[in-house]
């Protein structure tokens, strides 16, 4: 187990592709995506029932042990969530990878 950071990003589903591309550019070691979440926030309810998926959220989970990378990721996410809503959380954890 090594100490690391746990980044969680809630973002609307149509933005997922763009975020995945951004993360690749930043060379994060990996990420996990939970699709089709719904929710509610300043921009009203996202029911997750929309016919083209444009009213769903998804959640990205990124684990890394590099504080500088955390900064880079949150910086990169900021414009995305200020444009179309969402949230970014950072907390600490112990992690075990293969």
């Amino acid at each position, binding site marked *: 187990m090594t100490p690391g950071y746990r980044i969680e990003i809630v973002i*609307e589903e*149509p*933005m997922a592709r*763009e975020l995945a591309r951004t993360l690749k550019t930043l060379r994060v070691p990996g990420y996990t995506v939970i699709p*089709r979440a719904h929710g509610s926030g300043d*921009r*009203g*309810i996202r*029911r*997750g*029932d*929309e*016919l*083209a*998926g*444009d*009213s769903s959220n998804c959640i990205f989970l990124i684990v890394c042990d590099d504080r500088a990378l955390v900064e880079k990721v949150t910086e990169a996410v900021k414009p995305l969530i200020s*444009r*179309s809503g969402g949230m970014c959380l950072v907390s600490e954890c112990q992690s075990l990878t293969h």
Partner: protein
Amino acid sequence: MTEAFLANLSSPPLLFFFLGMAAVFVRSDLDIPGQIARFLSLYLLFAIGFKGGVALAEAPLGIEVFLTLGAAVLLSAAVPVYSFFVLRSRLGVADAAAVAATYGSISAVTFITATSYLDAQEVTWSGYLVAAMALMESPAIIVGMLLYNRFRETHGGEERQLRWGPLLHEACLNGSVFLIVGSMIIGYLTGPDGMEQVYPVVSAPFLGVLCLFLLDMGIVAARRLRDLGDSDGSGKLPLGFMGTAALVFPLINAAAALGFGVLLDLDEGNLVLLTVLGASASYIAVPAALRLALPQASPSIYLPMSLAITFPFNILLGIPLYHELAKWLT
């Protein structure tokens, strides 16, 4: 005339739409699973595209066809322009551009409901109207973005530059447009032979699937309508304006489309369908594109307008109304 309305309201697809709305209003927990709803919608696009393609392969392509397609594109590009200036009276630039794009574009499900209405009334229509539908999805998005870009406030030395690549991509290659056009091409290539092979999937169950899909649409539309009601107190949304616009735009646009259609001397069925295309507003393709191209616009304005007001209005009252007008004009 009331007869036509009653016949429409008592058709199975419309009754299932009411059932879906009723489920929400009595707060029943009836719900169509999300992936099923998406698939039913893909199925309808696939089937209408294929049918349209086969019809195109069977009928000779006359000059009428190209003129109609041209008129459709023109309509879809012109509607957002006038709408934008009307909408600017109450909405910000981004929201006005988004609503304008929504009303310039079309709703495939409204079109499909209209074809099943015509089939039930035994009025013939031509396959190339499906092509018109496909062509009308995209131009409105582009015009909407141009309007936004022209009239938005710029800060400092910022340039009014559109990123054309992603915009055209979103507008022309989103899943719905791609599937309709693709299925239409395949239907065209395989013709009646292909139709014979896939008839039990493409044609026979069409109306039954439309019932199930409109059940879901009723649920979805009624939820949006209720959300609007809930947000009433907050006073953030110009509800009165939104409601009026969502009822008046389809009528104006229908009138414009009727005009074009009469000029082109379209048959009764085709005239109805062109009018429906004009009157309908997008709630799948355009919102999906706007999310990426114009995230500054608020989905809680443009989506309920097209989905919760214009869509029910069109399928309940609009279609038989446009039909009466078309009969009177041809």
